[in-house]
């Protein structure tokens, strides 16, 4: 059914360069936000002439948040929330100058809705440092921030109740002194204290938000493990018989977890892990990548640039980071 739907999308795109019903695209063109929704032609929904970036749909597809330039003497930037017709809902300053720490967030690189009233803003600080600032739309204030020196932003669970990030690789310290950790809600959960591992994937939450997976390689022995943290606090490790694979993709299908790298794939479920003969046909990462390419063509044909976000209930795009160049 999913494939059939996808093919329908493709057919519609190639014929009319509009999006089918049930799919919404927000994108930036000439610094303004445009929307294509439910089969419509592109529609400009902002008009104030101030440069805007990173539009992102709320989880229910009813609102769009985006980043807007402000005078940097006032703040780093501004988060604006509108409905899909362009009516303003919220405007919140990000890092007002008088509240900004000296080495704080310098650029806004990504935005993501965590819940109906919280938005996470990710970006870089100084080299190697990545900060995620969670804005509370109700209060208009910063709720909390997450700092990592591992170069990657925090990853939020689908229900917004947890966040995870890698840490423990201070830029100006020698690699042999690093002790990278996987952290959940600002607490290290893997590995045991003092153990040196290298993470070979991004952390990946299960759809039910109760498990978190990551691939870790022991710095000394080079043994590679698929690591699963459960909200109960337990951590399971599954050794993968690999030698050359260095980067892994992870995705969940129900309670089954798939890891893939270099043309090989493994499936883990109920404390068992086994290599599967080939890449799963339903691989949502691959499918989402295809979908991004398709939607990217639509946006480019409408004159948009790469700042774009897609919302649809039935497709696979939610497995990808919200911000992704449509050229990739």
């Amino acid at each position, binding site marked *: 059914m999913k494939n059939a739907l996808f093919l329908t999308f493709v057919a519609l795109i190639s014929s009319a360069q509009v999006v089918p019903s049930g799919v919404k695209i927000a994108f930036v063109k000439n610094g303004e936000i445009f929307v294509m929704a439910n089969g419509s032609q592109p529609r400009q929904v902002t008009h104030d002439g101030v440069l805007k970036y990173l539009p992102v749909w709320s989880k229910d597809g009813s609102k769009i948040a985006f980043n807007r330039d402000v005078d*940097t003497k006032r703040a780093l930037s501004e988060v604006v929330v509108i409905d899909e017709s362009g009516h303003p809902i919220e405007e919140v300053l990000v890092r007002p100058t008088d509240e900004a720490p*000296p080495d704080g967030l310098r650029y806004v690189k990504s935005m993501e809705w965590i819940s109906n009233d919280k938005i996470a803003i990710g970006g870089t600080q100084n080299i190697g*440092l990545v900060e995620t600032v969670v804005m509370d739309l109700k209060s208009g204030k910063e709720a*909390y921030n997450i700092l990592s020196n591992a170069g990657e932003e925090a990853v939020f669970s689908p229900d917004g109740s947890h966040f995870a990030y890698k840490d423990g690789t*201070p830029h100006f310290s020698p690699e042999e002194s690093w002790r990278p950790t996987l952290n959940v809600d600002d607490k290290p959960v893997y590995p045991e204290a003092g153990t040196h591992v290298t993470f070979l994937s991004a952390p990946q939450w299960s759809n039910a938000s109760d498990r978190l997976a990551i691939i870790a390689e022991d710095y000394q022995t080079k043994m590679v493990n698929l690591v699963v943290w459960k909200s109960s606090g337990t951590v399971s490790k599954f050794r993968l018989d690999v030698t050359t694979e260095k980067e892994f993709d992870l995705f969940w299908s129900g309670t089954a977890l798939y890891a893939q790298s270099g043309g090989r794939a493994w499936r883990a479920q109920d404390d068992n892990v086994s290599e599967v003969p080939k890449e799963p046909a339903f691989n949502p990462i691959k499918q989402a990548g295809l979908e991004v390419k398709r939607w990217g063509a639509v946006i480019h044909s409408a004159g948009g640039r790469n700042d774009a976000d897609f919302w649809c209930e039935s497709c696979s795009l939610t497995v990808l980071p919200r911000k992704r160049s449509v050229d990739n």
Partner: protein
Amino acid sequence: MLAFRCPVRFLRVAQIAFCILITSVSMLASGVTAQKRPNGQTKVGRMGPISPLTAEPQQTVLNITVSPKVRVLVDAWVEYNPTTCTEISPGSWDVTTEPQYGKTTKGTVVGTLGNGDCPGDTFTFAAIYYTWTSTDPNVTTDYFAATWTSPDYQVTDEVNVALSTVSLSRQSLMQVEATGTPDGGSFSYSAQSVTGSSLAGIDIATGVTATTNPNTATLSDPPNPTPKQTPSPGGLAKITADYKTSSTATDSFKVPTFGMSCYYTTLESDWGTVPNKCLRVRIKGVVYSGTVTNPYGLTGTYCSSFIAEVVLQGSGVLTGGQDVQYISGVIEDVSVINGADGTPVIANETVARDRSIIPTGGVLVDIDQVGNNLLANDTGGDILGYRIDLYKGAGKAVCLDYDNIISVSACNPGNSKCPASAIQ
């Protein structure tokens, strides 16, 4: 049978220009001999499109210009009946003098007559081709002779081959030079994406025309699509020079652009002053404010927020200028701060890069509007692909208002470790 044929008429037809890559085939003379069927309704013709010649010389001398490794159709003939417009024979070619720097090949080609006979009818012509194969840079001409023979005719071609070449070289970070042979051609330039979309541009230099040989062109930086936002990556462009005579020779090389940003080591004075004016920072859910004494083995009292940042970033600079580094749970004085490659980072000289683009080993890079001889000896978590971070020293002020331009770059000339596959 032959006695019943009409006398042969010679309609001189011009040289062919069948292959788009054959650039110059100028007929100085042309000839057909051995009229074996003086009364027959037979005739020979070259493949068109052609401008008929009136003379009837005994020998054909052809001057052609070719590009390396490109097969060029040199000549093609057919014997036909002009009354019925039927083919008598495509004939065949024999090479009587082999070329020295290329090779000839024979075949057939279907086309129409160049002399205007039998409009709409196609014939199968016997064709001879030439391909320049030599890689000797000192050779630019070649010669061969071949004879075409049909049942009633014979044509001898003497073919002078001139190699059309263009050599493109980078004279400096932003200037390239192209030299073309033979003289009389015109240059044009283009840039195509190998990867990325913010690429170097190229135009003929000011004061230079397309026919100036050697020809100078200038590279240009792309605009930054997000000047106030997260630095954008650059990309890798294939810069191509075309030299057009009657054929087109091409040469190319790759030019990278890098999206720039700036970084620094954290500076104690940025975090306030002890004991009462320390700024605060929240790291991993912990708010650091106030002061701390003798932290991690470092003697003295410091703002807690500064020390937390030193641990987070791995280094810092004390107000008096002393470098400190956090290693394995201890903050200690150091004489230099090392980057990811284990060598010191130097303000305005060190750049952090993606090692898959610029590897380790002391590669020096030049970056337009930034500087020359920059040492690629650091990395950064967010520095992926065609991004470069310039180390500016200590404290946030050094990067204040840093313009995140996208700049043309090159390995410093003469650097043996320049990764030519990615950055030249």
